[in-house]
């Protein structure tokens, strides 16, 4: 048996890995809903490629989480699939913005843009984590996210500085998404485990996030809404009603036919 402090430390590590994994997975899963429905073939392919990157990142974090859970544990071994398919919504630690419905193209683009800029700065800092695996996954992922930021920035400009209709939709999307931004920068307990320089404190990236977002929005002739009341809870398992529906669909096969393989 591990001593109490070690266990707590281990739990923080697992929670942190799960938080990063869950956000990527739910974002990726949501985006995959566009498969075959994109406004044009090239963008359909782009968005599914982004979804694929995100699900790949999630797998890396789930694999690491299961490795930590299984270390020193001789009982039943947990797999990445168990973590994705057999946890209920209150155990999910994803950011709320990732579970919001895609709605139209403008809201989808807004979600990818806000989320990717956040991921970009999180990974940039996480590369310096004292935990080798977090650092390695962050290094790998940040290259992919760079393209997500670039692609979604182009679309923000195209829609914001586009037609009257596209601009209206982009503004509606930004106003809808804005109250879900706050929790990105509020550290959860497991993110404050930074005395060992393993995790990063998301409050530290808020300035960078605002700078980048504001510069792209300026080019798109748009701006962020005024500060308002913000939703929170995703990191601690308190979710919108939408997550339950996502999990019901995503987990159906493993729940109905445990252990099923392709």
């Amino acid at each position, binding site marked *: 048996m591990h001593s109490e402090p070690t266990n707590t430390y281990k739990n923080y590590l697992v929670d942190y890995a799960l938080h990063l994994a869950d956000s990527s997975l739910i974002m*990726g899963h949501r985006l995959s809903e566009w498969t075959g429905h994109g406004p044009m073939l090239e*963008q359909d392919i782009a968005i599914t490629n982004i979804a694929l990157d995100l699900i790949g990142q999630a797998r890396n974090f789930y694999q690491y989480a299961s490795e930590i859970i299984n270390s020193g544990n001789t009982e039943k071994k947990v797999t990445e699939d168990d973590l994705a398919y057999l946890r209920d919504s209150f155990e999910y630690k994803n950011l709320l913005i990732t579970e919001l419905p895609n709605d139209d193209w403008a809201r989808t683009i807004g979600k990818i843009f806000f989320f990717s800029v956040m991921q970009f700065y999180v990974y940039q800092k996480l590369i310096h984590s004292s935990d080798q695996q977090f650092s*390695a996954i962050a290094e790998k992922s940040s290259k992919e996210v760079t393209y997500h930021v670039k692609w979604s920035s182009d679309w923000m400009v195209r829609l914001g500085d586009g037609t009257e209709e596209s601009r209206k939709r982009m503004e509606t999307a930004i106003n809808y998404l804005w109250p879900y931004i706050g929790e990105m920068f509020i550290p959860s307990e497991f993110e404050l485990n930074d005395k060992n320089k393993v995790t990063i404190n998301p409050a530290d990236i808020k300035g960078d996030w605002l700078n980048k977002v504001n510069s792209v929005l300026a080019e798109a002739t748009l701006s962020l809404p005024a500060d308002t009341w913000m939703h929170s809870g995703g990191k601690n398992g308190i979710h919108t009603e939408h997550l339950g529906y996502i999990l019901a669909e995503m987990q159906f096969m493993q729940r109905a036919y445990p252990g099923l393989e392709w």
Partner: protein
Amino acid sequence: MQKCSSCKELIPDWNGKYEIEPILNMNHPFQNIIPKSSIKETEARVWKILNKVTDPEIPVLSVIDLGIVRDVKIENEIIEVIITPTYSGCPAMDFIGMNIREKLMENNFDKIRITHRLSPAWTTDWMTDEGKEKLKSYGIAPPASKTFDNDYLKNLPVQCPHCTSMNTKLISQFGSTSCKALYQCEDCGEPFDYFKCH
């Protein structure tokens, strides 16, 4: 025919059936007495074999051309091939691992371990010049820059692999796979894939 020096069983000679002469047949304990110096030779053979393993999406490129093989290690008769994934979610990685294993088995290696290594992260800078040439003749524009140039994310001029014109435009940042973008040539009118800097 030669005799296994340990179990004394007869081992068939290499009959030209394999692309590369097998020197390791793990079924025979005579392997245990391979002098240390031949580990280097075996490694060289493994690298040669890997040069024949191609990417499932871009069959003109070998895994060596792509720069995803980081190392080959031989320890306790086990051939370990260390590969680096191109993209986190790249579905080709599992196939590539399988293909490597298959090719090595065809060449009479049977204790094989494929290890995935994330860091340092794969970059198109590791793609060989030969690989870039092969890409071009296959109709895919190779990466236009090195990633350490920093401005690799700017839309650099990309040369049309069909008519060599530099007058091309970006259609989509993401092409048929994560690693490619879609371009079109303004001169010959042909659309083409561009292997992006990564």
